[in-house]
């Protein structure tokens, strides 16, 4: 019984912490994107190149922040379950075997917002305190 209680409390705390952590990052997309909600799994698949098209059939253009960015680290930990080095190596592996191209990255979150706002089918992420400009916020299930 005690073990059950401990496990339940642990799970609730873990979920609560994860929600708190996830709350630090906002997923943004170009207004042309025909979805307003994504699951965490979808976000992971998009940024690992495993989901390549939106439901309407248009190619997904995903962009990232530079490796040293705190928001990049938080985003990867929360959604992609990799650290920045693992994420970079994942893409280098595809690049050096001819199976993919390195994601475009930005040095600042403001630059990412501008790019996503003007690029059809684009998706990115920023800290929750950043002005989302002319992008749309994607809710996470």
């Amino acid at each position, binding site marked *: 019984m005690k073990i059950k209680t401990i496990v339940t409390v642990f799970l609730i705390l873990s979920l609560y912490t994860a929600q708190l952590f996830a709350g630090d990052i906002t997923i943004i997309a170009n207004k042309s994107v025909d979805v307003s909600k994504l699951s965490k799994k979808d976000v992971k*698949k998009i940024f690992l190149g*495993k*989901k*390549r*098209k939106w439901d309407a059939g248009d*190619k997904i253009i995903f962009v990232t922040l530079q*490796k040293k960015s705190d928001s990049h680290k938080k985003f990867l930990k929360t959604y992609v*379950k*990799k*650290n920045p*080095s*693992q994420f*970079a*190596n994942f893409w*280098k*592996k595809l*690049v*050096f*075997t*001819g*199976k993919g*191209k*390195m994601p475009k990255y930005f040095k600042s979150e403001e630059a990412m917002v501008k790019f996503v706002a003007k690029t059809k089918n684009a998706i990115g992420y920023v800290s929750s305190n950043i002005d989302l400009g002319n992008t749309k916020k994607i809710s996470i299930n």
Partner: protein
Amino acid sequence: MKKLLLFITTTLFITMFAVNSFALEAEVDIHGFISQGYLKTSDYNFFGNTEEGTAQFNEIGLNISTEFTDELRVGAQIFSKDFGSYGDNEVIVDWAFADYRAADWAGVRAGKIKTPHGLYNETRDVDMLRTSVLLPQSVYSEVLRDVNMSMHGVGFYGEFDMASAGSLSYQIIGGTQDVEGDTTSQAMYIMGLSSTSYTTDLQGDEIDVDKKYVVGLVWDTPLDGLRFGFTYDNTELSIKGTVLNTLPTLIPAGSTISADINKLQNIVISLEYTIDDFQIFGEYKRTDKEFDYTITSSGGTLLKQARVEDDTYGWYVGTSYRINDLLVIGAYYSETKGAEEDTTGVTIDPEHRTYLKDTCVSTKFDITDNIIVKLEGHYIQGTEILSAFDQETDNTWSKDEWGMFACKFTYSF
């Protein structure tokens, strides 16, 4: 057939440049890497002159790729390496293929394609992706690097989303290949003749691959960071060699050794688990060989004819841990068990020529995003991996334990 495939590869290159000059909106990506290493062994020569210490240990790769449409991408990489008796910095086409991906679960590639063989074979030359300098020899033998590396053909691939069961990616490739590198060492290793003491009296003349097919599966489990891999490949090939000096088994100089290998089959089972900065991994490989060989005198007389059925295995377990942005440490233990008799029926002696137990400790320094430096030490029991061709003429295989130091610098962009 090979000329046709060479033509296809060349055409891919030309098409890529030609079409791109008209399709100005297509972005061209160029990436590359250059590595320079140093190897020193306490005893024996590990491919190069490592007993004295050698810098004949480098790799250079340059690739170019572009996407013509959302579904079609084309690319190629040229590659050059020097690894002791292998490579000699000859420039080769490492991969060159057109890739059409109709859906996430269905794509097709045609051209020269990297071959899956365990989880890490396709990236074995991309040094910055792993902590160790040398991959575990039990699964990623340097002797057979060129036999396992890439192939000409057509491959189908994709990934299935299995909902709560994770996802399953697959590759199925069929075709043939040109075996580059040191023909003698690879031919004799495949024929089971590289462990015996008289192999310096043999020469490999030709390795001709008729067909090869490969199946690779990776299951990304629902548990984040845990994945399993399975690869299967079979190669049908023929090998020709020459006896340079009369062998102890009284086979005269000038005789020809031929082998028709209808089964050179590998199965690799893999596991990798990553939790934040910590990773554990392990793989098991089994190789089965079946072939007929003949030894014919220079006058055309059949001296010996036999059928060989042989199986060997190897496995390793390893770990790595990122301490901070600069430093990653890692270690692995790798074990190989080879045949106890060579192809001609001679018992391999001493016994340590039939096994290899390698304990390796590595450090990797990520100096910048583009520059890495690695340092590595090996304590090795057994000499199965070592080719008699690389040893000094007075070598007597007297030591069953030896050590190796490796360091490597890599720049990539």
